[in-house]
């Protein structure tokens, strides 16, 4: 089964797609990347993900798997070659899943708020929440890494991939809001980790540069403004 054809429906600007690319690279899996125009979704995407109609979708042996976190776990379970993405210890696995869910459901949505918020006071309040979240993640990093360089230990693992895939957008957010979010005085471990993780073989060339993402965002906002004024 592991030798069947692998396709990834995605868009390079999506951190959710990036995380699947990193996982596939980590496991040295050959795959076909099918670029989706999110403004005009393909029949294949709509058929493969009828519930959410979103990227990424991994298609393996003609079967679609949706939702980035589950795709990453699926890859880890099918391709059992090393390195393992999830830890082997059940408590460490539960901890990794907990932080991945926290990052996706509680922490990263704050960036959407940051983009939309009006006024300096409101902006400062959102920035404070983002930084508080990073302080929690710094503690998590210290505990999970156990003195090594990644959340996953010696090699990148689940939380590295989940949080790492957002780093392009984190940097874009810092530029657009003119604010430092990853701060060596508050989260020194994470600052070092952030520099390291995207240089890793599996991750480099995957996460786009912040300027590219800012351009993508500007195009999207112009298109939305145009659509809503029609």
């Amino acid at each position: 089964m592991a030798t069947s054809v692998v396709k990834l429906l995605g868009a390079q600007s999506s951190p959710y797609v990036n995380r699947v690319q990193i996982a596939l690279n980590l496991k040295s899996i050959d795959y076909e990347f099918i670029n989706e125009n999110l403004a005009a979704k393909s029949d294949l995407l709509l058929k493969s993900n009828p519930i959410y109609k979103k990227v990424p979708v991994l298609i393996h042996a003609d079967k679609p798997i949706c939702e980035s976190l589950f795709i990453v776990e699926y890859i880890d379970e099918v391709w059992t070659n090393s390195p393992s993405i999830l830890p082997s210890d059940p408590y460490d696995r539960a901890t990794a899943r907990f932080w991945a869910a926290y990052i996706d459901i509680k922490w990263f949505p704050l960036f959407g708020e940051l983009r939309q918020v009006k006024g300096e006071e409101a902006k400062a309040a959102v920035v404070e929440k983002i930084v508080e979240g990073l302080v929690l993640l710094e503690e998590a990093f210290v505990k999970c890494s156990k003195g090594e360089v990644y959340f996953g230990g010696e090699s990148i693992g689940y939380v590295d991939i989940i949080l790492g895939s957002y780093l392009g957008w984190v940097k874009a957010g810092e530029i657009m809001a003119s604010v430092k979010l990853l701060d060596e005085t508050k989260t020194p471990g994470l600052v070092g980790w952030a520099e390291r993780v995207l240089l890793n073989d599996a991750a480099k060339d995957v996460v786009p540069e912040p300027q590219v993402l800012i351009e993508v965002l500007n195009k999207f906002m112009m298109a939305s403004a145009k659509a809503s004024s029609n």
Partner: protein
Amino acid sequence: MATSDVKLLGAWPSPYVNRVQIVLKLKSVDYEYMEQSFPGKSELLLKSNPVYKKIPVLIHGDKPICESLIIVQYIDEVWNKNGPSLLPSDPYDCAMARFWAAYIDDKWFPIMGELRKAQEEEAKATLIKQAAEGLVLLEEAFLKCSKGKDYFGGESIGYLDIALGSFLGWIKAGEIMSGVKLLDETKTPGLVQWAQRFCSNDVVKDVLPEPEKLIEVLKMIQARLKAAATST
């Protein structure tokens, strides 16, 4: 690690707590249940789940595990020799089970919460339609996952049975309060039969609260919220 040092911080009306209780029973794990009184939060809860301050929290040998579906997977992995696996062994089936459990938690069950708050008939009707459409999707998922057997998990209760089944008390409570049948044998016959089977299963029947008791809890919470709003 000794199974006697397993604690569950919970509250009986919570479907998320019920999930963990069902799984602990399925895996024959002895544990100490610590009912958390609403709305207070004990020191132990705040210390064990500082990020969300919510139940359920499983404490295993002093290590806390939070988030019900994460706890369910943890129990399945630790007590992997006790009974059948809750998650399918095939990675694709496993991804499907996780997908549908997340759909139920993130998309479907929140509709019930909206329905309870909805004031106008039109809003209610729209939400009921959305809930019913979701159940039709879950009916298709049931047919695919069960492969002709009794449960989403096949012959025995599995991850997805627990994820959806834990909400059955609240679904019935919602049907009584709104006067609308959500689980309808004309639209989702497979799910209707599955629901009856799940609720009468030995492991489940003493865990899921009666809908009437849940309605009482809901009325009490609503009364408290009203009192708090009018006293400020």
